[in-house]
Every structure is written in C-alpha cells, then in structure tokens.
C-alpha cells in the first residue's frame, strides 16, 4: 500500500477543515444484535453489485474445473483463488450466440455478456448493460450511481452504458478516483457534525433550472437527437440526486474508513507491473467507496479485450502473444501469454481480499456484495466466445450460494445476466434478444 489507510488517521475527519473526532466503539452501537441492520435507523446494510473484467480469457483445460458442484477442483491457472474458493463460484459452458452477427475479435464477447445481445457494429453496446439496470434499482440513494475504473488507464476501456455509441467512461488513475469519491462533496458518514453546504444548495437549484430547458429543446429535435437529450437529462437527474445525497446527513457506517491521502498520480502504460500497482490502488478506493456507501455499483476493468499489457523486455503485447507465441509442446500452452493470466488472477484475488477484509457486522463487505468477473473470450488464440470464463464472488448479503462450479451445458450466457439482475431485485422474467433471450434463471446459484 502506497498510503496509510489506518483507521485512526482517517477518522480524524477531513471535510472543510472542520475536524471531528469520533471514537471507534461508538460506531458499533449502531449495529443491532445480528449486525445486519443499523439500529439507529433500522436501515439494512446495503447489498452491492460490481463487475471485474479481464481480457484474453484463459487456457480452458488449465482453468475450468471438470465437475460441477461444490469443492470444485482448482487447476493450475485457477489456483490463485484458493483462499477464497468458498466465496467464489465458477461459471462454465455458457455460450454467446451471435445469430449470424460477425464474431468481432475481442469485441463481441464482452457486450454479449453485459447486454444479452449480439453486437453488430464494432463500437459501443447493442443495448443497456445489466450493471446500469441494476444501478437504477439499487444505486439511487448513493452519491454515485456507479463508479468505473480502468487499471490499464484507458477511459474508453468500458463495457457499461445505456446502449448506442456511448460507454460510461472509466477513471484512469487511482488519484482521479480518489478525488471523485473523497474530494469535494464527500461527507464522512461517521462525522458527528453535519452542515449542508450552502453552495451545494445553490447548485442544486441551478441544476433544476437546467432541467427546465428540456422541453424547449425537445420540442424542436428529431428522434435521434431526442435520444441524446434523454440521456443528457438522465445524467442530469443523477447529478441532482447526488447533490440531494450531499445535502442529507449520511447514516454512520462502521466499515467506512476514509483514505488518509490521495494516492500518487501514475502515468498510464501497458507495463504489467504498473497496471498491477494501479489496480491495487484503485481496488482500495473502490472498496472504501462501497464501505462508505458512496456507490453500490462498480465496474472495474483490469485490462482491455485485445490486451495491450506488456512486460519489460518482451517485443510484443499480451494480445499478440496469445496469437503468435508457439504452443509449447511439452507444456501444452503458451508460457509467455499465460504469465499475464497468472498476474491477472493475482489481481483478482487482491480485489476479493480487499473486500473481504472489511467487516460489516458479522459479515464482510464481500459477503454483502456480488461481483461478476469475466473475460471477453474463452481461448484468445482462436477468439472463441463460447465458454467464456466467469466467476461470481460474494453472496449478495446471503441471496446467492457460493463456492460452486456451475456447468451451463451450452445454454445462453444471458442466463447469467438474467440471474444477476433478479438477485439484485430488478423485476424481469426474461432477458436478452433473439437466441440469447432467456427466462431460465441459474437455479444452482439462488440461496
């Protein structure tokens, strides 16, 4: 860790120089007997949802377990999750069905998982991604509907959006993420005092003023531009909502420990070591954003689909290695390409561990969260998109079972999106389009 997350420094308070000291034991008093609700208000400990993406898949025979069910076998490339196996389910044999749309290499798989639709243009998303739908369901009372970050440092590295050409841009540095979450506008939930900021109040009224321009504009536009305006005003409403949150005294949260300092600025680059470091700092920020209830939805991108990760001294990137490196006859896989996968699994475990370290009553933050980790291809060398590796971590506050290997038996991957949305309270009974339309929840996962 590059900076100090120690609880005591954090609790000294930081907003507007109005230092407030809060004793730690006091916070425990807010939790009721079983630790799942805040006694002061009766509010439930929130359930969170997130995604964690990595590019270029796995070597399937070295990663996927052979037998469905609990206590699945950990093959060499999955071995890094060992300590968290009980909290991680593995999903295999779910297929992406494109109905004749081209398999755009490294592009088609991700959007199919996130939207249940086949991408036809080589950009954007073919529909709303489920993290956005889930955000509309569970994220309305937090400052941010969702937080998005790209450890490889590319703002276009995103699979989240409402469809069309736009993607929710990713934050590219931990420093920027810090400022966004804990910078101006942040109210420490554990601060004993709360004064609504008069400037925020004024801004709130300004924004509702901007909303008044809506009818004037929409009366004069055509259908395509109206869509853009709708998205703009949706964004504006979320901004207003955030100001409302900033003007409301937050509930105290035992697990919230405000990071003491802004992490150092790092130049984005494809070097795997730099990306690992950037990811760790971003993971720490995300975890505290969740613990402090600043957002309940997040999207963490480790690398991009056609991964630009490099390793000092190598002539080519991770992506090129998957295509050009010779399969080692003795090993049966591509050792240099696989090196990157090993690091990616290490990063994933770091993320899970960081969530699991935060205690919320008798559960951990990981237990109160549900995270879908997935790639965009099964075996990158051949761009296969059936059986894309996916993992589900956390238990969504007890709503899902964990620690099992689910064999999808070749059914559409949209079953995953459907199940996740249902678990998170989105009221739908079917999801996806054409051959990926499904009403079959993955029953094995439901607690």
């Amino acid at each position, binding site marked *: 860790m590059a900076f100090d997350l120690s609880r005591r420094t954090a609790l000294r308070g930081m907003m507007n120089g109005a230092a407030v000291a809060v004793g730690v034991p006091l916070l425990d008093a807010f939790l009721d007997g079983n630790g799942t609700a805040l006694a002061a208000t009766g509010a439930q400990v929130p359930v969170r949802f997130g995604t964690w993406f990595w590019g270029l898949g796995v070597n399937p025979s070295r990663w996927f377990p052979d037998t469905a069910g609990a206590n699945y076998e950990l093959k060499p490339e999955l071995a890094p999750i060992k300590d968290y196996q009980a909290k991680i389910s593995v999903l295999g044999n779910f297929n992406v069905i494109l109905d004749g749309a081209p398999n755009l290499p490294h592009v088609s798989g991700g959007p199919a998982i996130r939207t249940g639709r086949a991408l036809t243009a080589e950009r954007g998303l073919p529909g709303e991604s489920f993290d956005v739908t889930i955000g509309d369901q569970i994220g309305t009372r937090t400052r941010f509907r969702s937080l998005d970050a790209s450890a490889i440092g590319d703002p276009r590295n995103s699979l989240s959006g409402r469809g069309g*050409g736009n993607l929710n841009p990713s934050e590219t540095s931990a420093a920027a993420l810090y400022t966004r979450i804990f910078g101006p506008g942040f109210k420490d939930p554990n601060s004993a005092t709360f004064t609504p900021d008069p400037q925020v109040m*004024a801004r709130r009224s300004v924004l509702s*003023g901007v909303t008044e321009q809506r009818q004037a504009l929409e009366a*004069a*536009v055509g259908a395509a531009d109206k869509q*853009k305006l709708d998205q703009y005003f949706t964004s504006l409403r979320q*901004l207003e909502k955030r100001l409302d949150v900033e003007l409301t005294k937050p509930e105290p949260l035992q697990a919230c420990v405000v990071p003491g300092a802004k992490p150092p600025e790092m130049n984005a680059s494809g070097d795997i070591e730099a990306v690992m470091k950037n990811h760790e700092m971003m993971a720490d920020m995300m975890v505290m954003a969740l613990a402090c209830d600043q957002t309940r939805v997040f999207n963490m991108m480790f690398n991009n689909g056609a991964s630009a990760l*490099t390793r*000092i001294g*190598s002539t080519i990137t991770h992506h090129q290695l998957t295509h050009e490196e010779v399969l080692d006859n003795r090993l049966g896989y591509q050792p240099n390409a696989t090196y990157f996968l090993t690091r990616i699994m290490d990063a994933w475990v770091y993320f899970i561990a960081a969530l699991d370290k935060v205690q919320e009553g008798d559960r951990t933050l990981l237990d109160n969260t549900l995270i879908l980790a997935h790639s965009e291809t099964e075996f990158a060398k051949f761009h296969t998109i059936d059986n894309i590796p996916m993992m589900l971590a956390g238990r969504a506050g007890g709503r899902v079972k964990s620690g099992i290997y689910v064999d999808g038996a070749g059914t559409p991957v949209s079953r995953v999106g459907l199940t996740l949305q249902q678990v998170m309270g989105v009221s739908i009974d079917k999801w996806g389009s054409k051959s990926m339309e499904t009403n079959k929840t993955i029953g094995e996962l439901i607690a």
Partner: protein
Amino acid sequence: MMMNSMKRMTWGAAAVALSVVVSGCAASDAPKTAVVEQGEPALTRAMPGAQIVAMRRLTEAQYRNIIADVFGPDVVVAGRIEPIVRPVHEMIASGAAEASISPAGLDQFDAMARNIAAQVFGEQRRAQFVPCVPRDEKLADPACAAKVLTPLGRYLFRRPMSPAEQAFFVKLAGDGAGPTGSFHKGLELALAAMLTSPRFLYVIESAEPDPARPGELRLDAWSRAARLSFLLWNTTPGETLLTAAESGKLTDQAQLRTLAEAMVASPRFEQGVRAFFADMLLFEKFDELSKDPVIYPYFNQDVVQALPEQMLRTITDHLVARNGDYRDLFTTQRTFMTRSLGGLYQVPVARSAGWVPYEFAPGDDRAGLLGQAGFLALYSHSGRSSPTLRGRAVRELLMCEPVPNPPGNVNFTAVQETGNKAKPTARIRLLAHATDPSCSGCHKITDPIGLSLERFDGLGMARKTENAALIDASGEMDGKPFQGAIGLGKTMAASPSTTQCLSMRALSYATGRSGEDVEELVPALDRKFAAGGYGIRALFTQIATMPEAYRVVTKPLAAPAHVSMLTQ
C-alpha cells in the same frame, strides 16, 4: 447509388412535412413525442421557429479553445472530457453527432464548469467580465447580472439568448446570490449552469426553409457561423461571425465566400487544420502509445509528446505556411526536430529546447509524412514494426479504403516470433499470410505497402538489417512496384484515391455526416480541390461555401410506428 439518393429524397420530404407540423404545434394528430406540452416554461420559445437538425458534442480540443477564446488563455481547464467514440472508419466529428453524455461524463463537465466559473468571477479576473458595479456585493443585482451574462451567453450558445433565456440565467444568478451571500458567487453559479447546458455542450444546428429549394431546409445563419468557425478555426464563432450572422451575410453566397476566404487566410486557420488532421489520422491513439523501453531506449515521454507534434508541424508548414500541394506532403523533405527527436532520427539538433526546422538530404528515404516516426511508431507493435498495420493505416486513413478484420478463427501460429533465426525479416515471416488463401486476400492489399517502410523499426528509427539480415524495402500498391518510403510517397501522390479521400474526410468533418452520406458530393469537390492546386485553403474554402454542405439531409431512422403513420 441512384436508388439510394432517391430514397433519401423521399425521406427528406417526409421529414420536412413532419417538421412543419411540429413548428405549427397545432395539429391535433401530431405525434405525441413532438407536441409541446401545456404549461410550457417561458424558455420554450427560446429559439422561435428553429428546427434542430443536428446536435454535435464538443470535442475536448473545442472545449479548451472556446474557454481560452471567451475567457482568456490563462483560465485553467482542469480535467478530462468524456471521449467521443469514433465510429469505425469514420471521423470523430461524425461520432460527435451521435454522442450522448453519460452520468460520469456530465459529472466531469459539471466539475470543470464550476472550476472555470470560479476562476472567471474570482477576484483576479472579475473586473474583466463584470462591466458594472453591483449595488451590494452581498446581494443579487439583476440589472448588473444581465449586463454580465447576456454577452457571455451569446458567445457560449453561439447565438443571442432569447429574453426568456436571459431572464432565466439572471434569475439563477439571483437565486445563487441569496444563499451564498455573494453577488459574484451568484454569477459563478449561473455561468456554471451555462457551461453545463446542452446548448453549450452541443453545437446545435438548426434549419430554416431553403428559398432556393422550396420545401427543403438549409442551416440557418447562426448554425452557419458555428459551422464556419469550428471547421476553419476549431473554436466558437467570434464577434465578426456573430455580427455577420445577425446581418444575414452568411446566407448570401458572395459574402459567405468573402468571410470564408478571410478565415482561411488568418493565422488561426492553422488551429483548424491541426484539429482536422488529428481527427483524420486517429491521433487519440498517441494517448495509448507504449513501447518497450528495453528494445527502444530512445522511447520516452518527451518523444511521445513530440511525435504527433512533429507530424502536425510538417502538415501545417507544408499546407498552410507554404500553401503546398497536398500530394507533395507524401514526398516533402522538410520537417521539424526537437533535441529528443534528434536522437531518434540520428540527426544533430542545435537547440536544446523547442523546435527547429530540418530538411532531409535529397534522396534520403526519410521523406514525406509516412517516413515520420510518429506514423511509423503508431502503426507498429510495442516491440517491433508491423508492415500489416502500416499498410492498413495507409489504405484506411489516407486512401479511405477499409480493410476487413482478420477472421475470428484465424490461426496466427504460422507467424513466428521475431527471435526465430530461420525467419529473420518481417517479409519472410509474412510469407505465411501470403500463401494461406484465407489470409492472402487482405494481406496482399496491406503488406506490400507496409514492407516498403521496413527500413524503419517499431519506433521509426532507421535500420538496414533485421536479425542481421539485410532488409528489402521494395513495395507495391495496386500493381505499381516501388522502393522504400520515398517510392511509397510518390505512388500515394499519384493515386487519385489520395486526394478524393481527403475531400471526403474534410466534408465529413465539416458536416458531421458519415463518409457514406457525403460520398456523392466528393467527385465534384475533388475537381475543385484539383483546380485549386490541391491546396488545403482551396479545399476548405470550397467546403465552407458549397450550398450542398448546408442543406439538411434527413436520413431514415428507426422511427416509432406512430410517426411513420403520420407521414403516409
């Protein structure tokens, strides 16, 4: 082609019929989405009679230029802007016409707006923008606020605010002054609201009936002012253009030409040309450029920043300062160097800071835009060159000839590692593609172009050998053989696709329409480009003045059912 334009015409007419209904606002069977609701706020008539025909989101460069022009270059624009997604094989300018603003994107715009507004009305600068003395610094003063906000609104919205809009922002300033106890804070909040408004963040193009073509629409004067300004200077229209719009000059063909000619003669035209080429040549890719420092010791942050700048300096020096022929850009020996580039190019650079002109010796293979390290490095891998990527970039970016993607199930095993001693050069390694029928179709249109640039490595440094084997830099394009970068440059200069592609890109850039949508205008434009000696000023003046570019073309949309019923 014929069928297509016929269809387009029909749709255009239908859309016009629909818009007439909308502007009348009275027809009882008007589609629900277009009806102006009862109890409309006063703002509804902000743009009386205007039909919005396009909304083009500002790019980051435009945003920065506008802030610098309206508030001064010393106002800091901190932060990044949500990137506009580039449609495949198209300009970002046409992506801008489709771009919406996500919650995170608006967040960034909002934070930037507040930051800018705080600087503008901070104690240091406020005197510049507040021409009146408020009655009480702690209270609202509508009269003084109006004096401040009205001219700013005209610049930021690129047309005068309506009385209702004016009253609205003045009221915001008053509402803000109350709780903050400061007149200037009130102004700050009102300005931040302007900078977050869709009227600022989008260049809104609106139309009026075209007297030359009854029943059709053309862009109105204010939209023309913005079009000219963003096309030629990549910034918001200034006083001259706004006044010209007010007095009807921009719909008069002769006066429009005079203005456009003055604008391309101005030093600010260079800024416009830079923005155009940065878009056409995919310069956003420089943000992600990374090279292995072990393999390329000359690669560092100074070099990364200098690479695109060197290309832009070469382009603007040749096309703008020297009024050169676009085709000669591919063979010119003139360029500019910094000390850090000097190392990469292995040429002496006398000055330790800044840029110095440099001319390669006659016969040097390092000639033309494609011999520049920026191009060569961008279309290479992180640790080696790529004839395929380079050839593809030449085809797609400079000749507008899209190359298909590799098939999804491609097997690259045949392309061996660079370390393989049996296959020392890229030419030999790529033979595998040339002999596999599923690959050769595309590789034969890319690789022979790129192989002529193989005497430059993955960072663009000159070399004679690869893995100790001598490099053969012969190339071929559309059946014409040539040698090295200079040969490629001459072949490009001789190809009609080169100038037609530039014409198409420039037209797409100006109008925000896709290449396909402007295609039919290209042959005529290219002839004018030729008549102007392939000068960039001639091309841009032509685009800025051609009536076709200001005509409103309505494309068929996936329209809701009730709308299509109405157009029967």
